[in-house]
């Protein structure tokens, strides 16, 4: 306790010097926290995005062995239906994920959007937040109704109002203009960062996939939603076996991947990336520690007489050692705390700018501050030992 008070007064006595010494720790700690938190935030964003898409999302395609793609490699609507039937409740959605960039027209206004097709049980694939009207339903898909769900911005653009339900839109599909009835309007809830990553603000409207895909269309790949994500590996096995049997192709040529696998890959990639960059930033902590050692050595030399006085008056070797160690640890811990505050602020301001929820893990802060105190103790040890070993007779004579 007495040592802490003593160290505090020594630090106060040399405010500017103490601050400059701390600066190394401040910069080191704040950059480590900012970088690791940025990594964690990115992982959070990715995880959230995959949760929006649904971790049950999986797709499958068949590789051709001779660069020729025919009936055995491509999928028809009929095959998609058969797969769904065979898998029963284990798969909640099977579709082709057809999407095309095209023009919408209403009166004299027009707009370029992505028109995305949804198959039966559409909300399993996409479940946007509907603000007016309703989402597409199975009836729309089965009866090939020309119904459409607009994004809010598209509705405002085309009709000057968010509530465009009941309006008619002309869509250019396969060189024909087809008329659609707006049944719902949704709001895009993606974060600013996600929108940026998706490359701009292209709006998406949803229509029944049965309109985009004709009976004899051959499609590259099948998209499906696995009902129970924990059964993903088993379902992959079943689906590959089924397709191999029904399409008479080698199992090895069937490629199947899932959102959960992709997310795991991206997550571990981001994780190791932030660990590596964080480790590089941690080097600056060592540099900060050397700064502390340097200043403590100067301080010990300057205060040789004080050390001599203290020893003459009864300070034991340990008392002096602790006094200087506490001082070094306090400088670095104070630097660590200021650095933590700075790092968190940087992350928070960054998060605010991008409109994302930032993640600052408690472990990161604890590890960073503990590490800085350890650096302080480690690099303070040599100067403190030097001080503690001083001979009072010589130290008292020191000018």
């Amino acid at each position, binding site marked *: 306790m*007495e040592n802490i008070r003593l160290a505090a*007064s020594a630090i106060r*006595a040399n405010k500017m010097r103490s601050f400059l010494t701390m600066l190394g720790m401040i910069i080191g700690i704040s950059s480590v926290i900012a970088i690791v938190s940025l990594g964690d935030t990115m992982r959070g964003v990715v995880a959230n995005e995959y949760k929006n898409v649904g971790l049950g999302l999986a797709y499958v395609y068949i590789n051709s062995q001779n660069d020729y793609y025919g009936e055995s490699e491509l999928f028809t609507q009929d095959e998609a239906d058969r797969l769904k039937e065979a898998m029963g409740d284990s798969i909640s959605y099977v579709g082709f994920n057809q999407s095309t960039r095209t023009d919408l027209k209403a009166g004299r206004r027009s707009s370029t959007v992505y028109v995305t097709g949804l198959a039966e049980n559409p909300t399993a694939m996409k479940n946007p937040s509907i603000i007016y009207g309703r989402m597409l339903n199975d009836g729309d898909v089965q009866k090939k109704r020309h119904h459409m769900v607009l994004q809010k911005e598209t509705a405002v653009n085309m009709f000057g109002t968010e509530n465009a339900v009941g309006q008619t839109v002309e869509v250019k599909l396969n060189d024909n203009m087809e008329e659609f009835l707006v049944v719902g309007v949704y709001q895009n809830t993606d974060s600013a960062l996600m929108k940026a990553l998706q490359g701009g603000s292209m709006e998406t409207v949803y229509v029944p996939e049965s309109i985009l895909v004709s009976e004899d269309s051959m499609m590259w790949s099948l998209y499906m939603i696995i009902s129970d994500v924990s059964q993903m590996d088993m379902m992959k096995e079943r689906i590959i076996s089924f397709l191999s049997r029904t399409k008479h192709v080698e199992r090895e040529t069937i490629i199947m991947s899932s959102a959960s696998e992709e997310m795991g890959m991206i997550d571990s990639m981001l994780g190791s990336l932030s660990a590596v960059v964080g480790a590089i930033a941690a080097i600056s902590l060592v540099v900060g520690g050397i700064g502390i050692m340097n200043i403590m050595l100067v301080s010990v030399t300057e205060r040789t*007489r*004080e050390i*001599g*006085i*203290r*020893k*003459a*008056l*009864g*300070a*034991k*070797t*340990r*008392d002096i050692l602790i006094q200087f160690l506490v001082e070094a640890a306090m400088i670095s811990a104070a630097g660590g705390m200021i650095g933590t505050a700075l790092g968190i602020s940087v992350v928070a301001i960054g998060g605010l700018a991008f409109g994302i929820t930032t993640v600052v893990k408690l472990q990161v802060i604890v590890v960073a501050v503990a590490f800085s105190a350890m650096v302080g103790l480690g690099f303070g040890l040599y100067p403190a030992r030097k001080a503690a070993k001083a*001979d*009072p*007779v010589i130290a*008292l004579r020191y000018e």
Partner: protein
Amino acid sequence: MKEIIKIENLNKVYDTGAIQVHALRGVNLSVYEGEYVAIMGQSGSGKSTLMNILGCMDRQFSGLYELDGISISEQSENQLSSIRNKKIGFVFQAFQLIPRTSALKNVEIPMIYAGMKREERHERAKRLLEKVGLGERIYHMPNELSGGQKQRVAIARALANSPAIILADEPTGNLDTRASHEIMEFFTELNREGATVIVVTHEEDIAACTKRIIRFQDGQIIQDERVVKEEC
């Protein structure tokens, strides 16, 4: 009378590699409780060396030194720290106050290392400063005090743990005549109250305030006389 300091055949050799300097040669000395002693000698006479040994800051000697019954050469460095803390009150020529630290805090230092509680040592330090006439200046920094005042803070600090001896090394060396007399009066007063005081000096009129003068030359005691004290 209790024998506070007992020195028998004390020898000290400084070995600087090429030359050996025989600083103390077979010194024998006894100081009893309540004595008021001056140790005199030219520089190089060995009195500073004796001072360091008496102050338990140097245990590299041969011969016997017992302080208050404790054989000093057998103590570890940490034990010596503890002995200095409890048994010896130091007063130095250069005051040796810790800079940027109030008079009060300076007086508290020996009590901190003795493990005294905060309130208790605070109270005691205040009382000691009042005793040396600095009750009004307890929060002053050393650089705000005159030489005489600094030395009075040092005396208060020397008394902090009620030591067995007060060891003053040229306590008036940095002071003018008036302040010197003031300080010596304090020592005389302390001695009158029963304290054992040893003053190292090279000034005859300072030594004249004491009751026993020991003269050093070439590492040996050449004279040890009790004096009839005049008023200082």
